[in-house]
């Protein structure tokens, strides 16, 4: 028997699929125009703007103190870190040195936000791959963080805790105990996460070898955050350009060399442990002192350009301010991690199947308002 008589030149026709703007895997209003042949993806063309709110244009109208509150709505899962980015940029521009207490609390809050964000991502990742129970596990634990936030900040998702010059209020008296309780609980819960998903053979097979990002590509496409560290690139802003209290704590930057979806997944899982380590080091050592410094009622930045990088749960958030000395910035640019991460989606998902695209999108952890701004 020979195999030569099999006709391999069968003509198939490409067709278009609109994935989104209303699609369960997009976690928001992301529209991808897919060119597919059967189930194999030939091209992914993102069409953005379904939740664009022109935050950059609104910033040119508002004062610096008002702008902080807009940034909650960028990447709503890292809202605290977004606030921090603007505050740090303004503080650095004005030359304000905030008290250590502020730095410590900001760092703890940022790490709690990162934990909450990674938990949600983990649950949604499970759901995208088809394991519905993961979502509930994640929300069980995320609820505790939200409660902590609610008690101290007053909000559960859009924090508005940072203001230029410090914090809005001091921490709640029960804050430290609650955080420690949470850490104790979550150290036990995290192995459960691994049992449920990370070690599951189906889950591994679905992610391993899917959506490979090489080291060179990751840098060239500006991929940042856990997605880039899954390709073995050291890009943690907390290590490279430390801000707040990150220079006072010991933590590892998680680097995995592989570059496929499973490696990106594992980076985030291990990052959760590191976040807990950071909180552990800080929570008992919050120094006494003021929780804000006096700033003028109407902040006017000196003429010039200011750039501040921070590490959100999704990667490197940049805040670029061009000031002309007035009460509002001349140009305010957010360099959002999701936007750059999205640009590589087309390259890495070609040749994979529709189901893989969902897995890749999950492993890159998109938050659509972060992309659309």
């Amino acid at each position, binding site marked *: 028997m020979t195999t030569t008589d099999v006709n391999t030149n069968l003509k198939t026709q490409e067709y278009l699929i609109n994935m989104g703007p209303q699609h369960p895997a997009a976690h928001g209003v992301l529209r991808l125009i897919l060119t597919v042949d059967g189930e194999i993806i030939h091209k992914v063309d993102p069409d953005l703007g379904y939740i664009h709110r022109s935050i950059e*244009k609104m910033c040119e109208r508002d004062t610096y103190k008002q702008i902080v509150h807009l940034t909650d709505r960028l990447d709503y899962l890292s809202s605290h870190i977004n606030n921090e980015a603007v505050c740090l940029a303004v503080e650095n521009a004005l030359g304000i040195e905030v008290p250590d207490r502020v730095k410590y609390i900001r760092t703890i809050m940022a790490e709690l936000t990162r934990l909450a964000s990674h938990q949600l991502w983990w649950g949604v990742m499970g759901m995208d791959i088809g394991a519905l129970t993961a979502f509930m596990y994640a929300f069980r634990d995320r609820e505790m963080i939200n409660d902590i936030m609610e008690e101290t900040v007053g909000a559960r998702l859009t924090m508005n805790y940072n203001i230029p010059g410090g914090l809005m209020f001091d921490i709640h008296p029960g804050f430290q105990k609650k955080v420690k309780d949470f850490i104790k609980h979550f150290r036990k819960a995290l192995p459960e996460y691994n049992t449920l998903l990370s070690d599951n053979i189906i889950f591994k097979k679905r992610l391993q070898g899917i959506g490979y990002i090489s080291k060179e590509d990751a840098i*060239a496409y*500006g991929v940042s955050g856990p997605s880039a560290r899954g390709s073995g*690139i*050291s890009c943690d802003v907390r290590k490279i350009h430390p801000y707040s209290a990150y220079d006072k704590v010991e933590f590892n930057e998680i680097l995995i060399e592989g570059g496929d979806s499973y490696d990106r997944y594992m980076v985030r899982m291990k990052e959760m442990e590191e976040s807990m380590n950071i909180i552990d080091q800080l929570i008992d050592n919050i120094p006494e002192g003021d929780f804000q410094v006096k700033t003028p009622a109407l902040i006017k930045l000196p003429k010039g350009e200011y*750039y501040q990088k921070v590490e959100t749960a999704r990667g490197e958030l940049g805040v*670029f301010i061009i000031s002309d000395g007035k009460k509002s910035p*001349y140009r305010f640019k957010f360099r959002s991690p999701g936007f750059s991460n999205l*640009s590589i989606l087309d390259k890495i998902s070609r040749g994979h199947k529709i189901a893989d695209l969902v897995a890749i999108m999950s492993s890159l952890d998109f938050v659509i308002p972060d992309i659309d701004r």
Partner: protein
Amino acid sequence: MTRTELQSFLTSKVEGLEFGEETTQYLTVTVPREKLRDFMFLLKDTEELAFDYMFSLTAVDWFPKYLGVVYHLESTKYRHILVVHVNTGNREDDISVDTVSDIYPTAHFHEREAYDLMGIVFEGHSDLRRLFLTDDWVGHPLRKDYVDEANMIVK
């Protein structure tokens, strides 16, 4: 490389660069429009510079003179940062800049965003379409003289 080393190195390689003031956060350099691509190739390919990571591309409207693009570059090897400014010609009719999307693929999306919201035309860009707005949108919202009476609250 430190800031001063970087400045002297770049001065020795390329003519016509304008460096920003000493007080700026990062070393800032303004490149003539026609030299942009050569300059970017130099930054990326020179062994001592190795600016391989473009982390931000911002379009700015320097009203009423010209439009500009600000590139933030970092070297993942040496961790030095350089800010490159480039300006278009007349704001009304000469608004093109050469693309860098083949040098830094991340610029592909950022340039589409800049084209969409600021109207800068990137010469040589492979797929310059609107990214956020609909294809038939009139005007570029981030420009200082953009008016939309229905949707904008002006203070």
